[in-house]
């Protein structure tokens, strides 16, 4: 069934870890590069698992799991140059990870101590956008800027299958087509928008949306990291060389709940997961690496150790992450605070202090 849906999706590595040819796409990576892809996927998965656990313990308020989507995220982000710019959603921990965003920076928002977490300009990776679809327009505007600058850079923007319903995403397709922007629209079709299944309505394959706007779209097996890289690289190269935008639909699956607040048993069958477990992106690469002697037991063990260390770091780090002082909510509302905000801030401080006094008195 999945295979039927996958349809024309580009694949370079079968679910069994066998390397196959594709007429239009190919990629050659060194063993070291392949290992680092594996390593990043394992670490991101561990980060995800720890965050889920920390949410259950009440240490963070919410978590949107990337489980199962590691190849789509890590593969596409690895295709970027450091000078390129990425616009992730709230689920793209594999992307922010590859952009060098630190685990604590990713977790800060979910812990509720900030609505951001990192410097998007320094990381060349925007903050997570929660309003579905908004960031796709930002990416288009950013790409307009890249074009104005005549810079040799590309922009990639991530969004879900559900997001393609939103006006903003379609308006961003119009912008991309009109101005032939150096932009890759990367749609992670994980088959679900909370409880809404992608195939509910026998909708047209998502990658085909692009043609109607006047640029190419391609579906890739989103659990095949080699194919994801091959397709994304080509799209990014096209973008940088003035070829205009591309829509990449990474066909994958949301293995977890929508977020830790969600209860997917209300709307999908546990059995559906089984078929996708067999298509696990990490296992697939692992088999390929092992079978071809690109990595051995000791390497896999080493990565597992790194993951265990990361878990400790995340647990300790999150617990140590304290809320900022209340009055920081007045910072950065404007570049320079207004008189009204100065007064409100002073009022808050005085008010909070009145309790402290009360306590010491």
């Amino acid at each position, binding site marked *: 069934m999945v295979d039927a849906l996958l349809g024309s999706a580009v694949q370079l590595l079968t679910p069994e870890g066998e390397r196959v040819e594709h007429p239009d796409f190919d990629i050659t990576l060194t063993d070291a590069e392949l290992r680092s892809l594996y390593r990043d996927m394992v670490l991101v998965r561990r980060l995800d698992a720890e965050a889920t656990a920390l949410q259950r313990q009440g240490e963070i308020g919410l978590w949107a799991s990337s489980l199962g989507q590691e190849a789509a995220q890590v593969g596409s982000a690895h295709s970027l140059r450091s000078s390129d710019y990425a616009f992730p959603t709230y689920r793209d921990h594999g992307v922010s990870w590859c952009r060098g965003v630190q685990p604590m920076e990713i977790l800060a928002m979910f812990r*509720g101590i900030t*609505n951001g977490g990192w410097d998007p300009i320094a990381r060349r990776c925007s903050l997570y956008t929660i*309003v579905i679809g908004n960031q796709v327009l930002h990416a288009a505007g950013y790409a307009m800027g890249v074009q104005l600058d005549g810079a040799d850079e590309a922009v990639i923007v991530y969004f879900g299958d559900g*997001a393609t319903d939103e006006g903003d995403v379609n308006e961003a397709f119009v912008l991309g087509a009109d101005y032939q922007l150096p932009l890759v629209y990367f749609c992670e079709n994980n088959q679900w928008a909370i409880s809404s299944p992608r195939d509910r309505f026998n909708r047209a394959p998502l990658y085909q949306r692009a043609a109607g706007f006047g640029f190419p779209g391609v579906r890739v097996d989103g659990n095949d990291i080699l194919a994801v890289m091959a397709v994304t690289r080509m799209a990014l190269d096209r973008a940088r060389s003035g070829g205009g935008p591309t829509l990449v639909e990474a066909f994958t699956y949301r293995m977890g709940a929508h977020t830790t607040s969600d209860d997917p048993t209300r709307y999908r069958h546990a059995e559906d997961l089984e078929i996708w477990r067999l298509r696990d992106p990490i296992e697939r690469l692992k088999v390929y690496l092992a079978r071809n002697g690109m990595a051995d037991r000791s390497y896999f063990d080493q990565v597992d150790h790194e993951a265990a260390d990361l878990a400790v770091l995340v647990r300790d780090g999150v617990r140590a992450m304290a809320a900022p002082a209340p009055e920081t909510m007045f910072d950065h509302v404007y570049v320079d605070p207004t008189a009204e905000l100065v007064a*409100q801030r002073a009022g808050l401080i005085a008010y*909070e202090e009145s309790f402290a006094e009360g306590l010491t008195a």
Partner: protein
Amino acid sequence: MTELTIAKALNAGLRRAMEHDSRVVLMGEDIGRLGGVFRITDGLQKDFGEHRVIDSPLAESAIVGAAVGLAMRGYRPVVEIQFDGFVYPAFDQIVSQVAKTLRRSEGAVRMPVVIRIPYGGGIGAVEHHSESPEAYFVHTAGLRVLTPSDPGAAYRTIQQAIACDDPVVYLEPKRRYWDKGEVDLAADVRSGDPWCSRLLREGTDVTVACYGPMVRTCLEAASAADVSVEVIDLQSLSPLDLDPVAASVERTGHLVVVHEASKTGGLGAEVAARITERCFYSLEAPVLRVTGYDVPYPASRLEEHFLPDLDRVLDAVDRSLAW
């Protein structure tokens, strides 16, 4: 009388409205199979079918725009916006179409549309999940705005909103969804009038006007106060029913208005302006406002400092009396 949460009271009210009128249809993201992220529509799709409880695409303008079309066809759509912060993509349809169609058509086309929005903070959520957008809607002529504060009011007013031939923005105080209270499920409440304030607690020294999630806070403050506080739940934010407030202020001489939304341009300003005009010679102090600050809703670990709480209400009561 049955003890229910606000969430369950809304569910029961929606069910009742659907039973009563087959033209009532529900539409929204995840409201069908999942029953909504807050389970307000739980079980309704199972019982009324996919054609009356419609899982929509992920597109808020489409949800409200389609509701306009359904209303043109004679339906009474009740749409859910998943969270307050996601109503803005639908703002254009709300302001330019929902609010203006009756006027534009000179009465020919009614818009019995209910737009349900869980709103407000206090649940530890991430950004865009704790907004209080009521002032935008109250300023928009042609809309009615309702917000219940307890299960009984929720059960009544959701049915009355659906029975109303005008469009209603129905704001559900999400942090109070799990508050319990007595509900008279047997009563036929559809014909009742929800467009009024409710005097919830009598008092003689200071009047406190509030609504939605702040009502419980203000009632608690009144209980804790060492002066006598009268508490009025505005309930209908548009049209405002300030007669009870004015009558109260004529007795107390003091008014405090409380809401979660930011201060500047918030509803408190309107209440203050009107009451000052009506009760100019009765007021012994200016109307004081206890509100969220003029900042974007903060990250959740700071929200307790942003949201008016019992102490901030009492502080304002004291300041008013000491004026």
